[in-house]
């Protein structure tokens, strides 16, 4: 049985999370982290760690904890920069939280416009907005990225294929 909200110990690190703006959606696990969860990957711990054994990071992306390196890492999964965190039909979005110039956390937008986050090796939560995790631990949102939803990507590919066929 899942707890409704995070423990009070963990809430100490996230001063804007309240029982009203989040709920727990999984048990805790150290099998994946926030970046993996944002990318819908539950098999890897993503981070540009010093030692490649400690965490997965795409081979062709610099192994440094910078915003640009994270942007490149998300691009390997089809994400590109966008301007707004508002829900957009046909797209899924990720928000990257940065503190002192160093990425700390990522959250993924759900179909209902709310957001889902994995907190380190603690639980996954669903939170109403990005402000809920804007704090002295994760910093604030510096990038919003988007990619076509899986079905949408296939539709766009078929459309491109049709257009190419029509021209030929």
């Amino acid at each position: 049985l899942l707890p409704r909200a995070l423990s009070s110990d963990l809430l100490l690190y996230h001063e804007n999370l309240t029982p009203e703006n989040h709920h727990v959606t999984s048990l805790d696990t150290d099998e994946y982290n926030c970046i993996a969860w944002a990318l819908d990957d539950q098999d890897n711990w993503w981070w540009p760690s010093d030692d490649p054994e400690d965490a997965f990071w795409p081979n062709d992306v610099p192994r440094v904890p910078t915003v640009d390196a994270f942007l490149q890492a998300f691009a390997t999964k089809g994400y590109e920069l966008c301007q707004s965190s508002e829900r957009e039909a046909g797209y899924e979005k990720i928000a990257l939280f940065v503190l002192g110039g160093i990425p700390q956390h990522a959250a993924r937008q759900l179909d209902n416009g709310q957001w889902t986050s994995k907190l380190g090796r603690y639980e996954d939560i669903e939170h109403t907005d990005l402000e809920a995790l804007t704090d002295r631990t994760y910093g604030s949102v510096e990038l919003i990225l988007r990619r076509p939803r899986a079905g949408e990507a296939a539709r766009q590919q078929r459309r491109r294929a049709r257009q190419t066929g029509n021209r030929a």
Partner: protein
Amino acid sequence: MPTETILNATANAEAGSSVLVRARNSPYVGVLVTDAATTVTIKAPRTIVSRGEFQALADWWHEATGHLSDPDQIARHAAYQRILELGRKDRATVLRYVLEDLRDRGGHWYAALRTLADQSPVAPEHRGKTRLMKQDWLRWARQRDIIA
């Protein structure tokens, strides 16, 4: 370092090499040191790091870093660094405590384990996959009777 010679045996180790061991049916955990090509002695240092001391540090580390994703930041925490310092005094005991904690509570212990064991049993294809990394380390530890 106080030592007690508790057995002589044969082993496939070169003279002068050392291997971390736990003697079967014995409370001794120590460093296996060859003094000739086939004769070995176990030098068993007395435990100088208590479980309570390790537990307090590990509790602090789990509580303070559980919400983080960066393995390097997790390993820089003062409690983690103190555990590595203790490992320099009593490597076998601290290695066992860390492996037991990994088994029971999980956590990103892998940099500490590599330092304490001076090796890594993680298969190349398991890098970054913490579920499989944990399995590799626990299998390695059980094969050597370091943990149950």
